[in-house]
Every structure is written in C-alpha cells, then in structure tokens.
C-alpha cells in the first residue's frame, strides 16, 4: 500500500490558473508554479478565466487577482462558483483593508494572500490541495 501511495505521489500533477492583469505578477507567479512542477496557464482578467472554464478546462488551483479590467476577481469568483467550479480559488491582491478582503472572501474564495506571493505561501496553498504534494 505504501509503495502504491509513493507511486501515486510521483505521478501527481497539479494544475493552476493564474488570473492577473499585471504581466510582472503573472510571470512571477507562473514561474513559482513552474518551479514546483505545477502545470499552469495565465490569463489577464476575470472574463478570460471564466471563458477558459466555459471551454471545459479545469484546474486544481486558481490564483485570482482582485483588481482587473473587464471582470474583476470578485465577479469572476462568483461566476465560477455559480458554474459549479469547485477548484481551490485563492485571492491574491495588494488590497489590504479588512472590508475589501472580506468582500473578496464572500465571493467564494477558499483563501486569501497578500501580494506578492512567495514560495512558502505557495507551498502552504499546494499542501492544502494535496497534503502529499
């Protein structure tokens, strides 16, 4: 059984979607995910995040920025949840008032972290998705 579990661990491939209008942040977060072998895609606003799910794509993790043009993080999170998307959605923003974070959480986030993410925060997020990761 233990060797079966070990084999499963070796084949675990988590997937992630980075939703951020800022190219610098998107590139940094995607590189962090690359380094921990999480297959990932980046999109530049909430609408693109919703559209990619409408196309049938699914992700274990969605890193969702708050302030984005066209569709912001709150609207996108609400839309994804209403579509039945059960992925872990983690809000990542540089907004830090309690009220703004609360509003973002109420949209359907599983967790929230202040930008920028670092490896330690990302590891704790991935661990929440899969303790064996």
């Amino acid at each position, binding site marked *: 059984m233990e060797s079966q579990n070990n084999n499963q661990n070796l084949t675990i491939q988590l997937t992630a979607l980075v939703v951020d209008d*800022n190219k*610098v*942040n998107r590139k*940094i977060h995607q*590189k962090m995910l690359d380094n921990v072998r999480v297959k990932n895609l980046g999109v530049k606003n909430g609408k693109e995040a919703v559209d990619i799910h409408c196309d049938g794509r699914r992700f274990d993790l969605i890193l969702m920025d708050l302030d984005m043009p066209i569709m912001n993080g709150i609207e996108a999170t609400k839309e994804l949840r209403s579509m039945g998307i059960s992925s872990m959605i983690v809000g990542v923003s540089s907004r830090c008032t309690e009220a703004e974070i609360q509003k973002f959480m109420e949209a359907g986030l599983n967790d929230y972290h202040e*930008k*920028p993410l670092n*490896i330690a925060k990302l590891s704790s997020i991935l661990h929440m998705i899969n303790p064996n990761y």
Partner: protein
Amino acid sequence: MHSNSFHCSLSLSLYSSTMDRAHSRRHVASMKQSLFDQGYLDEQFIQLEELQDEANPNFVEEIVTLYYRDSSRLISNLENTLERKPLDFNKLDTIMHQFKGSSSSIGAKKVKAECTLFREYCSAGNAEGCRRSFQQMKKEYAALRKKLETYFHLARQAGPLETAFRPK
C-alpha cells in the same frame, strides 16, 4: 623543459582567470549588498532570485526588464492625468495602485515608498503633494534602473554562479 614551462603558463593562466572571476563575483555580491543597505531593494528581490534556475538563469533580469517596459505606460498615464484640471484623484490612485503593485513585486523599496506617499496625497486631495511625490518617485525609479542595469551587466560578466543570498 618546454612542456613543463607550457604547463606552468597554462596553470598560471587558469589561476589568473579563476581569480578574476572570483573577484568579479565578490564585486557583484558587494554591489547587491549595497543596493539593500541603501534601501533600493527589499526581500522580494531575493525571492525573485530564488526562482532562478538553469532553465531561466536570467529570470530576475527578464522580470525587471518587463517591469520597466510595462510601467513606462503607467507613468505616462500618471503624467497625462496630473496635467488635467481639476485633478481626478480617484483615477490617479487607481493607476498608482497598479504601479505600486509591480514595484512591490520586484522589491523596489524606495519606489514603493513614494507610491504609498503619492496615494496618501490622493486620499487627502493634495494636488501639490501628488505632483511633488510623483517627481520624487520618478527620480527613484530612474536611479534604481541605472543601478540594476549596472548590477545585471556585472552579474552576467561574473558568470552564473551567483545565487540568491540574504543581505546582512
């Protein structure tokens, strides 16, 4: 005798080249330390360096280049918006929020501090404060750019051994 002297020369040449590289690396490390000591950079820069690997040995330089390319657009927007009368403080704050986010992501400590001050002036509706702070921010932004260009140039010359280290 000839062969001995050839080997000697080769060894000396290798030694000299190794010492030059070691000296270059010390110079790069010293320059990086001073960027932290003078408050230009913060811990986030180290986080970026820790992402560098063999697949992306120049990742930090790529990110910084992207930052300067992307943020020039935001600075232009700020300049245009600061010329309008009366000032649209909400719009200024929104643009500066984006710019601050990018600056924070590359560890641009002084630039980020000026962004924070600018936003405080926006909240207070202080037009003169905004203009003053914006000018100071541009100075810090330009100064950091120059220092980082020098740093990356030296780092490339020194070779790929440089890895992230925490400043003292």
